[in-house]
């Protein structure tokens, strides 16, 4: 008998949950996740080397939180979350098509949009965990001498939340790219390291056409001097607007991805 559960939100959510649990389980064990886990541990190694150097060279004058904040921008915001979101975001659709496993999912009694949302949620969770573990360890290593200061934890929480928002938004964008284009990685690289960088040099409203603008708007503007190579002409948006825009971008691209995945015809070929 055909199970008709149309219109039931709980059925849709249950479908998303089932897809989520399958791909969270699979993603956790996948080789690619292990490679990226290693990559996300690199800041921990960097933090350790810097701390080690500070202790043994007697140059402990630079505050750990300052280095940490810069690590967040240089390593995480401008590199790691982009790379992770690009790979896992495009994987949501592309890996099923390239791996020709799409048939197993699309011949089940679940909406195709549930496949996209479930996989997206699973991969976003994985990426956020990868990022958070590295950030927490780097934070503790760099601020070893000031772990009792409450204000530092506020910075930690803020940074983790901003990075998580970045992952949510970028992964949604790349999920859409992965369902839309065959050459999703190259387009994604050009977007991440071309468009997102170049547009920050432009003044006025132009930079609002990038995701990184809203993320940087949520972080304090770094001082010049050390790490000055990072400085662009940031003209920040208000916090509320930045968060709203990030969620709006996420919702738009996820909806587009779901729509495309449901109606586009994927011809599986060698």
């Amino acid at each position, binding site marked *: 008998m055909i199970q008709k559960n149309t219109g039931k939100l709980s059925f849709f959510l249950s479908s998303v949950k089932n897809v989520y649990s399958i791909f969270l389980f699979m993603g956790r064990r996948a080789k690619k996740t292990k490679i990226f886990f290693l990559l996300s541990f690199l800041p921990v190694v960097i933090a350790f080397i810097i701390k080690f150097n500070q202790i043994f060279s007697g140059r402990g004058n630079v505050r750990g939180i300052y280095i940490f904040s810069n690590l967040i921008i240089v390593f995480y915001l401008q590199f790691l979350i982009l*790379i992770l979101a690009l790979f896992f975001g495009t994987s949501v659709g592309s890996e099923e098509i390239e791996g020709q496993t799409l048939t197993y999912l699309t011949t089940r009694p679940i909406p195709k949009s549930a496949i996209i949302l479930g996989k997206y949620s699973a991969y976003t969770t994985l990426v956020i965990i990868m990022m958070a573990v590295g950030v927490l360890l780097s934070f503790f290593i760099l601020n070893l001498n000031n772990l009792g200061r409450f204000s530092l934890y506020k910075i930690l929480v803020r940074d983790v939340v901003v990075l998580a928002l970045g992952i949510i938004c970028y992964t949604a964008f790349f999920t859409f790219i992965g369902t839309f284009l065959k050459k999703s990685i190259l387009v994604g690289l050009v977007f991440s390291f071309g468009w997102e960088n170049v547009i920050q040099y432009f003044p006025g409203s132009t930079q609002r056409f990038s995701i990184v603008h809203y993320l940087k708007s949520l972080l304090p503007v770094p001082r010049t001097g050390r790490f000055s190579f990072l400085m662009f002409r940031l003209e920040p948006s208000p916090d509320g607007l930045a968060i709203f825009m990030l969620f709006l971008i996420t919702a738009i691209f996820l909806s587009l991805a779901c729509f495309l995945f449901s109606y586009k015809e994927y011809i599986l070929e060698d």
Partner: protein
Amino acid sequence: MTIKEKGYSHWDGEFLVRKFPWWPITRYGIRLTFQRKFFRLAFPLSLLPAVFFLGLIYVSERLEDFPFLKGEIVQLLEISPNFFKTYLTQGFMLFIMLMIVIFCGASLISDDLKHNSLQLYFSRPLKKKDYFLGKIAVIVFFLFIITLIPGLVFFIMKLVFSGSLKFFLSYPWLPLSIIGYSLILTGFFSFYTLFLSSLSKNRRLVAILIFGIYYLSEIVYLIFRSEFRSHYVSLVSLRANLQQVGAHIFGQKTPFDISWIFSFLVLLGICVFAGFILKSKVKGVEIVK
């Protein structure tokens, strides 16, 4: 009815050794890359810097026709080994090379692993060495188009535009520098790309690793430079090492106050390590645990 016994017998035929057994692999790799529509559109764009530099050589010989060019621009138009070094070592050119190797090299071994085709390769009169040569030659082909060939064309055009051999007599070693540095660039990128391509069956992952590791080395360098304020930290950056060796080969001042030998050794070390991993990864038979 008698059933005839059948057994194995030694083959007495003559074993025909092809002169270049790797060539079919190269030819197929090049053809496959050109079959990609996106590549056919993007590849000509990678020649734009070469066209621009060629334009500079032309202008340098007719400066009197461009009286509005003054100051620093005129210095840029001074055609010397530094001009060639600038073309081959600038960050933008290295970025273009990176994008090209992602296009033509990311899938070179990973697709063979994915489709289990290594067994098919090695069931033919093909040695591992030939397999690697065939794959490397694909990358070399594309990188030479934007490194060696423009470099030599610049040199020849400089002689043609100037109408004398003065430039050649001033820098007779320059063609060798162009060839030598192009070989180092292509050699490094070939090993780097094939090594990463042999790590996964997933070509998207390989593409991200090729780009990510290069970019990552730059970020780590920038962070360490601020912290350690030592030129030795440039050794962690792939770009810095390539530029350091390039500057030495073209007889220019190196960008970092350390011996170029260190950078060369780092690049060589990466190639040796990559070669070692490649040798162990590329096998005719896969044992699944």
